[in-house]
């Protein structure tokens, strides 16, 4: 009895797991590498963070490789070197992300105060003190742009995705190919295309709705491809069940397939919005500009968060740059919110 109970209580042993004792040599070698790095930097003319990083990388890699060599021979040493190099690669990728986020928070928090969400740049210039002015107009402009671009691109994208997954018509290959091609269109090309088509030879001027057009072009491939992936995840049995009950294909798609993929389609839309929320280049050609809130989407210039940041950079003064960083911080928060909500919707399984 007692033996059974104790056996039940006992944790499964993992004999292959590295014990603390096995870690001792590698940790002490890393320490030795750190010391060696410090000594060499102190004694030779090599200076700076770069020297520390490089020397520590060389020392730790070679020490650890020597350890593996002594234990398990040449191929183990190679394995260790490969592992350290890859880990270093991963860290090198991670560093810029950390720097990007930290810099934005540090530099952006200067001008990040409540008043920027309630005032515009109507009576403030970029170089004025940060206590006046704000980016309410830019936030409203960005929301308008997102709404219009989504309204245009969402139907096109979802219908294209449905064509690719439900009808699988003769043109499927061609359309797949075109969507790939579209995803590579540079944002600046989308912008000047709308300019060439609508503004160059007409009396039209940049406005919210025209600014949203290139964004819609950029959004279509992202939404289509994600929506297509999601629709492919809907089990075929559901479609067959619908058809077997006598529903037409239209009824099956509208009442079974699309509702089943609803969360995924929302994710696709959010990813598309995240793709365009920070686009700057196309807006430079199509948005016009405005210092105040413009509720009219058909005429008059508009502002947007990326455009606001751009203006701050072009302004070039200290105040302009501070405003640009604040604008980026707000933009980054928006993108992060979109990203997290896309994850939340995406993590729910297709029913």
């Amino acid at each position, binding site marked *: 009895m007692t033996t059974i109970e104790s056996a039940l209580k006992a944790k499964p042993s993992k004999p292959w797991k590295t014990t603390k004792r096995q870690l001792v040599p590698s940790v002490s070698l890393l320490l030795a590498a750190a010391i060696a790095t410090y000594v060499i930097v102190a004694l030779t003319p090599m200076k700076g963070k770069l020297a520390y990083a490089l020397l520590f990388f060389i020392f730790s890699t070679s020490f650890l490789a020597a350890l593996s060599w002594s234990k398990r021979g040449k191929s183990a040493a190679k394995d260790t070197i490969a592992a350290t190099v890859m880990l270093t690669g991963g860290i090198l990728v991670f560093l810029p992300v950390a720097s990007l986020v930290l810099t934005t928070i540090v530099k952006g928090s200067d001008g990040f105060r409540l008043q920027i969400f309630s005032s515009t740049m109507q009576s403030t210039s970029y170089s004025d003190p940060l206590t006046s002015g704000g980016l309410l107009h830019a936030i409203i402009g960005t929301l308008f742009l997102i709404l219009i671009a989504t309204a245009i691109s969402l139907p096109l994208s979802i219908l294209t995705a449905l064509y690719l997954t439900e009808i699988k018509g003769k043109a499927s290959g061609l359309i797949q190919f075109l969507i790939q091609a579209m995803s590579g269109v540079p944002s600046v090309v989308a912008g000047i295309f709308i300019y060439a088509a609508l503004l160059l030879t007409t009396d039209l001027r940049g406005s919210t709705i025209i600014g949203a057009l290139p964004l819609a072009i950029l959004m279509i491939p992202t939404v289509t491809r994600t929506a297509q992936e999601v629709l492919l995840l809907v089990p075929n049995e559901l479609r067959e069940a619908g058809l077997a009950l006598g529903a037409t294909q239209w009824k099956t798609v509208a009442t079974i397939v699309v509702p089943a993929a609803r969360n995924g389609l929302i994710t696709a839309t959010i990813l598309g919005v995240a793709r365009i929320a920070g686009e700057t280049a196309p807006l430079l050609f199509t948005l016009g500009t405005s210092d105040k809130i413009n509720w009219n989407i058909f005429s008059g210039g508009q502002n947007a968060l*990326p455009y606001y940041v751009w203006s701050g*950079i072009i302004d070039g003064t200290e105040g302009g740059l501070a405003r640009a960083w604040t604008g980026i911080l707000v933009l980054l928060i928006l993108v992060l919110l979109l990203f997290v909500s896309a994850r939340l919707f995406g993590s729910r399984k297709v029913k």
Partner: protein
Amino acid sequence: MTATAASTVSAPDKRRITTKPRTSDVIFRGVLSVMSMSSLLILALIGLFLSLRGFQAFKNEGLGFITNIDWIAGVDGGEDNFGMGAMIVGTLLVSAVAVVIGVPLSVLTALYLTFYAPETIKRSLVTIVDLMASFPSILYGLWGFIVLMPMAEYWAQLLNKYLGWIPLFSVPEPSFSRSPFIAGLVLAIMIIPIVTSVSREIFDQTPLDRIQAAYALGATRWAMIKAVVLPFGASGVVGGAMLGLGRALGETVAVYSVLNIVFKINLEVLYGYGGNVASMIVGKWGEASLSESKALLAAGFVLFIMTLVVNLLANFIVRRTVKTGK
């Protein structure tokens, strides 16, 4: 028993079986087919409008529009002279720097994520890489200008000091600011997410039996990667790198913030000026006359074709790998 039942109850009329779709389905299919052609329409319109509006420049300059180096807008009815040779060379150079730096890092990261990282670290690292892809390009531009440039200038000086005997790293005078090297670094960081995720997808598809066979023969993890994963994924990685190249070719705002654009061909990556088609369009746009605007649209057409070709080639390579992998 069944016989009597059958004789009293008459069988229902045979249902007519038809393959003719209902009207609602005809409409449904029609709408989807028409709407799915929107991508064709948009791409065709882009090509059409840019080439049409830029036609004047192509006609006046001929092939010189691509090969000439000077870009001079005639003032007050003076003669225009538009050539984007330096810009095309500059674009290729900056993108090449981005690929040379970004792709190895991406491949290392993808290998680490697929074969080395513990499950917990793996999930958060994948999220970080995805997050990187959604950062706005203007953030990369401003960060590159404020944070990266001072550091990169120092790195460029070191490179020049120790490797200056290689023509690529030599400079005529010590001016390291706003060079193709720095623009390429920013672009390298920007293309890392896409190259990493494509490589990871392809490494993930390495047949498990081959991996296990390598381990069973006593291979270490690195030996397995070298013998199985890399040969299997090589062409996929090439495709991913080309997708990254496509992104790098068309990137505008980030490059504009960190590159000093001069209409002269510069192949010394560390030296402080270079060319870029997309950034040139943005930079020249503000004060362009009508004829210059049209020439810029023509430049946009050239950029459109360049990215289109690179992207389609990349997708072709990636798809072929993924198909043969299965």
